[in-house]
């Protein structure tokens, strides 16, 4: 199948899955005990006027399908409804908090990719004590949840040493980077450990392949052998982790932003879950799931380019 057909098919699959996910996210409201109206209001004033206002605003008296389609239509126009807690459009809330989270996730992503790949490379190529140290380090990194990393980093570098601020996201690019350094590290730690392990294993495996020996036998300098024949052959494996990395980064912002009081989208998710501000929770969930699928889509498109052996149109094992 041609690349275009493959891309279109993957796109269609992504859209279908995204629609199904949006259906679930929307319908979750109906899982709540009682009726959606009282759920949406839960804890707040439940006067008859408030209930009627809610029913009207969310068209809760319409048939389910209509409600869903209306909601979906609005979402596609960027309208995620109104926050019950703050009474402002959700998109406004999101917009205000977007820069912090965007910068945080970007910084963390750079850390994960760069440090992860480098550690994996060094561990597999050097071997010996260096590799041993990297193995130990990554074992603990993989066992450290991001909130633990956040608290420990905060305790050491912020409270004790005072090198970095312990809360807030700062203003102005440089200031923000300084504020978000510890949060980005906390966010990235677990994934650095994981990516380093994957890279290391993949490289060790490829090193045993005949084509590496052959390249050496042709007189190719050792560094070039590692770069062009070992590392290059692991890019496919690394790429397939892209979706997992991005989605983990996104969801862990809830923990890290809360720990560092960063006014980002993650913190908003935590707040709105606590206050049961469901339209906000819906919106953020949809965004996270959507980004994950988008990343996977791009990974699927890039993969055949990185690894010519991957035949177009094959899907991984399911269920």
């Amino acid at each position: 199948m041609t690349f275009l057909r493959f891309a279109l098919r993957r796109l269609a699959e992504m859209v279908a899955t995204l629609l199904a996910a949006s259906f679930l996210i929307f319908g979750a409201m109906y899982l709540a005990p009682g009726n959606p109206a009282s759920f949406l209001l839960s804890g707040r004033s439940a006067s008859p006027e408030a209930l009627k206002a809610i029913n009207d605003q969310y068209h809760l008296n319409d048939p389910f399908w209509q409600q869903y389609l209306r909601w979906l239509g609005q979402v596609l126009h960027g309208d995620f409804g109104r926050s019950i807690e703050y009474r402002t459009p959700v998109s406004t809330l999101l917009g205000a908090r977007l820069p912090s989270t965007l910068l945080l996730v970007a910084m963390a992503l750079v850390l994960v990719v760069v440090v992860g790949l480098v550690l994996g490379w060094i561990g597999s190529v050097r071997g010996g004590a260096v590799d041993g140290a990297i193995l130990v380090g990554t074992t603990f990194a993989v066992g450290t949840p991001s909130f633990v990393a956040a608290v420990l980093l905060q305790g050491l570098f912020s409270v004790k040493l005072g090198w970095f601020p312990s809360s807030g996201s700062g203003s102005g690019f440089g200031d923000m980077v300084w504020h978000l350094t510890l949060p980005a590290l906390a966010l990235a730690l677990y994934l650095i450990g994981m990516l380093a392990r994957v890279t290391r294993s993949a490289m060790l495996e490829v090193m045993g392949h005949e084509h590496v020996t052959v390249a050496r036998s042709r007189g190719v300098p050792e560094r070039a052998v590692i770069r062009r024949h070992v590392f290059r052959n692991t890019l496919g494996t690394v790429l397939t982790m892209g979706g997992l990395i991005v989605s983990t980064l996104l969801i862990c912002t809830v923990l890290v932003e809360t720990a560092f009081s960063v006014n980002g989208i993650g913190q908003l998710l935590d707040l709105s879950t606590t206050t049961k501000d469901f339209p906000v929770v819906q919106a953020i969930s949809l965004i996270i799931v959507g980004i994950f699928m988008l990343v996977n889509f791009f990974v699927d498109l890039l993969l055949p380019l990185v690894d010519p052996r991957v035949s177009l149109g094959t899907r991984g094992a399911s269920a």
Partner: protein
Amino acid sequence: MTDALVRRPGLARLRISKDRTGRSWLYLLCLGFLGVVVLMAVLAPWISPHDPNAVDLGNALAGPSGTHPLGVDGSGRDTASRLITGARTSLLGPLGVVVFSTVAGVAVGLAAGWRGGWLDSVLSRTTELVFAFPGLLLALLIVSIYGEGLIAPVIALGIAYLPYVSRLTRSLVLAERERPYVEAYQVQGHSGLQICLRHVLPNIAPVVLAQSTINFGYALIDLAGLSFLGLGVPALTPDWGRMVFDGESAIQSGYPLSAILPCAAIVLTVVAFNVVGERWADQVARRDR
């Protein structure tokens, strides 16, 4: 078959390569550690030196002393007792997640792999949908609907982890189905269900269980995170994640011990589960080769 062990692909990949260190003492150490932790959790009411919830504000944030070997937290509660008692919820939650996801995941994977056809397609598509939701996100969604408490998040996480178990089971079942003994039994008139339960299942069990052991660590991380946000266990229950949350303010005040200790407990327990689970997965993979 090693690439079928998924959840976090990183750890699965660990085993395919020649890991140049062969440390069985590490494995035994981790196994021993887990044994201690489990024992601690089981015997908690009898071995905690104090009532974990006994508040003593006058003594808040004191360091280690004779009566409080590990110090106290911001409300004067004995850290050691809270650690010991906290092991209960910290382990029980993930246990629920793993049991649920394993049982349900195996059932789904068996059905999809054995029957094939439309059932397989439907189940596969559905589990793929669940894949799109990170575990913590599902848990948060559920909590935003049902509120505080451990049961809802445990079920949510169980559902989130299910696809990894079912995907693994499915590929194992597909492979087993081709084995000659299956046809032999079918010819003798045994029903599909019988063959599945009495023969296929025991053969694939070791691999699935190894994966589930690894999943335990992840469930622990997710649930502790939830408690850290104040959204998991109810406020008064000692729980390691909760303790980190409580301890955060202690850190700000410069008395980090009550926060560091639960952090250490979480990390060490997860690391131990990972090491043990990987080792088992290793042995299973080697056995099959």
